[in-house]
C-alpha cells in the first residue's frame, strides 16, 4: 500500500518505524515506546542504523540527506518519526508502508 503525504498522519509513520526497528534490531525490548532511548540502550547500533536507513530510503524511494542521519534523529523513535514525517512532507514523497512484507 502506498500512502500520499496528504493522507499520512504521524501515527502511520510512527508505526512504520516501530516495525522497522523491531525488524532490524537484534535487541528490541517488548515494551518499546516512542520515548525509549535507541542508542544508549543498544537497541540500535551502527549496523541497525544502516539497515533502518536503507529500508526507509527504499520505502520513500529517495535517499535521506546525510545531515538527517545523526544521533539526534536516532535518539528515540519519536525523534526519528519527526525527522521522517517532516522530510516526507517537505519533499511530497510517498511512503510504502508495506515494504517490510517484501523483506521476508
Amino acid at each position: 500500500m502506498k500512502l500520499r503525504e496528504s493522507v499520512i498522519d504521524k501515527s502511520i509513520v510512527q508505526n512504520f518505524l516501530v516495525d522497522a526497528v523491531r525488524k532490524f534490531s537484534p535487541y528490541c525490548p517488548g515494551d518499546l515506546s516512542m520515548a525509549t532511548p535507541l542508542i544508549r540502550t543498544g537497541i540500535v547500533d551502527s549496523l541497525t542504523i544502516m539497515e533502518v536507513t536503507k529500508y526507509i530510503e527504499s520505502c520513500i524511494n529517495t535517499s535521506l540527506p546525510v545531515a538527517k542521519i545523526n544521533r539526534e534523529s536516532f535518539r528515540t523513535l519519536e525523534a526519528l518519526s519527526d525527522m521522517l514525517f517532516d522530510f516526507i512532507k517537505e519533499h511530497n514523497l510517498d511512503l510504502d508502508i508495506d515494504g517490510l512484507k517484501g523483506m521476508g
Partner: protein
Amino acid sequence: MDNLGQVLERSINLYPDDVALICSGEQVTYAQLGERVAQFASYFSGLGLNKGDSVAIASFKSIDVVSVMQAALRVDLVYVSLDPRFPPERLKELIRDAAVSVVVLDEFLSQEWSKLEFLPDCIQYALTLHDEKKLEIKSDVKCHNFKEINSDSNDYKRFVPQRKGEDLAYLLYTSGSTGKPKGVRITHDNALAFVEWAASEFEFSQDEHFLNHAQLSFDLSVLDLYNAFLAGARVTLLPEDDAMFFSYVVNLIRDDQITNLYMVPSGIIGLMDKGALMKEAMPKLKRILFAGEKFPVTRLKALLDWVEPNQEVYNLYGPIETNVCTFSKIKTDIVFRSECPIGEAISNAQVALRQDNGIISYDGEGEIVVSGRCVSPGYLNSPILNKSKFFLQDNHRWYCTGDYGYFDKNKVLWLKGRKDNLIKIRGYRIELDEIESHVQDTELVDDVVAVFHGSNSESGAIVLWCVFNQQALDSYGSIDIVVNLIRQKLKSVLPHFMLPKLIKSVKELPKTNRGKVDRLKLKERGI
C-alpha cells in the same frame, strides 16, 4: 616508567598548557586534566579502600570518565571499564566477578540502576558523575554525587602511586566459552610494553591529534589514550552515540585535522562506504591503524588506492590477553593472499607456532602462541582456564591465542583460522559457546548450536539452530512462544552484539564423522 599513571604525569609536567582531551564540545589542558584527576583521586583516597581494590566505570565516554581511570591508577586501584549498554544482569555478573568496591555511573545508568532491587554485595560505594540529583540505589551502597563532593585537593603531585610492574592496572572483560565472561588481568608492565612499543614504532609527536573511536572498554583505546598522553598530544573522545554515524566521523576527521585513526576494519569500511572517507577528507591524517578483525582484501585495496605515500596503514594483531603482539605495515605494493599478513612480532613480544605435539617452532604452521612483557598474567578467578591457555616452555610463559597461522619464507606471519568457536563481529570477540550455554540453561531446547553465517562481520549474522524440547513445545503451545522466551533470556544476559539474528528449528543437528556438530553443514544450509 613502571606505573601506567606516570604516562599522563609526564605530560602534565612537560605540557601543562596544551590541550589534552576533547569530548562533546568540552576540552581540557594537561594541567586541568591533572587537577580533575587529583579531585577524583582525593575522593577515592578518602574512602579507605585497600591497594588493588577495583573501581568499575560503567559510563559513556567523557573527560570525567578518563579522569576516573587515571585517578584509580594514581591511588593504586584497579579500574574496570564496562559498557553501560550491557544488560544489568551482565554488568552485575562482571562487578561480582571483579569484586568491585566502587562503581562509577553516569546519568543514564544511575537512572537504570535506581530501578534495580539487588546489587552485588561487594559494592561499597556508588559515584554518579553527571546527575544533579543524589543517586538512590536500593541497597546498602553509599551513594555520592561527584558534584556535591568537596574535594580537599586538586594537587596532582599529592598522590604518588606505589603499585607498578606486575601489579594489576586494569581488567578487560571478554566473552567466555563457559557461559561466563572472562576477566583479563592487565598489569602496569603489560600495558607499558605495548605503549612503549607503539611510541617507538609510530613516532607519535606532540602536535598530533588522536581520534578515540573505540569504546573505553576496548583495548584499542589503550593506544588512543596512553600514546597520546605519552606524546603530549591531544585526543578527541568520540562519544558512543556519534561514533555510529559515519558521515559525522568523517567530518570530524577533516575539520579537527585528526592525524591518527585506530579502528576495527568494519568501522573503516563504514567510513569509506557511508561517510565518504577519501583523500580529501583527511588532509592531515598520518596513519590508519586497524585491528580486531580481518580487513577484507578487496576493501583494503580500495583504501590503499587513495592513501598518499606519506600516509601509513598498519594491521595490528593481538588478542586482549596480549594486546597487540604482531604488526604489519601495509605498503601499496603489497602482495595479498586471501587476506593481509599480520606481520612480525612487536619488540616486546615473542611470537611462535605451537604444533599439535606441543613443539614450539618459528616456521611452518601451527597455533599462534605469544610470550613476553605484553602477555597477561591470566584470567581472574579462572584457574582451569589459565591452565589451558597459558603454559611454560623454554623458560618462557606462553599464551595460546587459539588462532592458527603460518610463517612465509620471509618470516612474515599470516592467519589461517580458529581452533575454537570464537568469532569477531565488528571487533567484538564472541564465544559462540557462551550463547549456546545460556540457551541450554533455559531447558527449552534439547540441543543448540550457534553458527555465524556470512563471510564478513558487516553482512554476516549469528543464527541459533535449536532442537526444541518437545515438553516445552507442548506446554507453551507454539514454537513462537518458545523462541520469544529464549530471546528474552538472551537479552537479559548478553550484550546486543552477541544476540542471534535468527532462531531456527531443526529436528536434529547434523554431526561430523567424529560426532561433533557439523557447523559447516548448517552454514551451507543457509538462512
